[in-house]
């Protein structure tokens, strides 16, 4: 049996923009890889870095945080600003810990941009296929 390996991507998306876009992509029957597991949050600003770490610790090969377009689409005014600043720092920390930049993405996708959502999923899946699985050295390290 030689099935092609598909990466596992966890996407933390905001209720108002990106989730609606992903939903639209589905109802419009757009073709997309089945590599993404979506976690719907009220706002990308709710995407606590701890969630991202938890996803990686539990076997995600890549993580997407996506929300409404800045500067003024955010339902909560500045949630996407916070998502952006946290993302920039978390990506730095993850890189020092051996997680490549390509494995962690921040995207702005509005409710009407179903096509963009599909494109993001597709290109990230391709990137991760190139990088291969994120292997954790679990020897002696307890991952809860």
């Amino acid at each position, binding site marked *: 049996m030689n099935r092609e390996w598909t990466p596992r991507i966890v996407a933390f998306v905001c209720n108002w923009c990106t989730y609606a876009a992903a939903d639209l992509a589905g109802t419009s029957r757009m073709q997309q890889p089945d590599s993404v597991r979506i976690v719907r949050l009220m706002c990308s600003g709710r995407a*606590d*870095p*701890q969630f*991202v*770490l*938890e996803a*990686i*610790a539990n076997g995600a090969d890549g993580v997407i945080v996506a929300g409404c377009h*800045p*500067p003024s689409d955010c339902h909560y005014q500045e949630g*996407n*600003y*916070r998502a*952006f*600043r*946290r*993302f*920039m*720092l*978390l990506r*730095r*920390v*993850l890189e*020092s*810990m*051996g*997680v490549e930049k390509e494995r962690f993405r921040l995207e*702005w996708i509005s409710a009407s941009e179903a096509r963009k959502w599909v494109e993001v999923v597709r290109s990230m899946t391709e990137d991760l296929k190139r990088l291969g699985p*994120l*292997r*954790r*050295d*679990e*020897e*002696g*390290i*307890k*991952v*809860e």
Partner: protein
Amino acid sequence: MNKLKVAWYWCASCGGCEESFVDLSEELVEFFESADLVFCPVATDFKKEDVERLPDASVDVALINGGIRLSEHEEMVKLLRRKSKIVVAYGTCSSWGGIPGLSNLYNKEEILRAKYLDPPSINNPTHAVPAERTRLTKLGANLELPAFLDSLLPLNAVIDVDYYIPGCPPTPEVFKNALKALISEKLPPKGSIIGASDKSLCDECPLNSTKPEKILLKELKRPHETIADAKKCLLTQGLLCLGPVTRGGCGALCIKAAMQCTGCFGPLDGIADYGGKAISFIGTIMDYSPAEEEELERAYSKIKDWVGVVYKYTLPASKLGGRVRREKTKRQEEAEIDE
């Protein structure tokens, strides 16, 4: 009243925790009125055999400080667990890994190389590194050393831990509070952090009144770049004080010396990953919009070692535990061969 039987063991420790015991000073007299030390390698000459001879569950409290780095530590804490009713992780290393836990960014080979082969100050022509067993041919004997583990582990990764006393090291005040909790009629629930506060450091910080409602920073400063005003919230001065996400109880000692909190009392209740929470909080106070990506990168690049900032004391207990390595581990390779 029967005296409390206390055992104290040190693992990968710097000596600070032991020092904090001595810092009880006059109150040591009081301590010894209510407690007996049955095992304490730093101060008394008991051996492992003496502990083995004790009946199981005969020690009332075992205080264990330092992280687990050697097979010897593993062996001793398992023994102490068997002999003790209550096991307390004493200090930050034992609770979450502490500063030596940052070594989990490297694997065993890299650490031994950096320590024994690469340092310019070491002359090691035979490339000798500590081995678990060395054959001494002339003597016809084997020399054995404890194994160096693959990573540093917090105590609860090896044995069941009842309570945690935070601090690097815990202050005498924290230690006294913890002792009080341990000898009280009603013990705190298992897994509790004892001796410290349930609130963040900011709550007890003497500079809290100078903290504005909203902090927004354009620039981060490292301690050597500025002379901090000791009367004004350090965060507002650009110093990365981790007080908001760190447990209080230390009495804000560093803050009183105009030094920002680096997080040695560890996470507050409800924080699963200290570094993740610290990143979350730092993201909140940086004053940049998504249109200013380059500027934000520049501001962040001012701090050279972010892992060392956000995970200074808690890397081994974090979600990822250390570096996520891409190399296959031996176990994975073996599993693949088995398939």
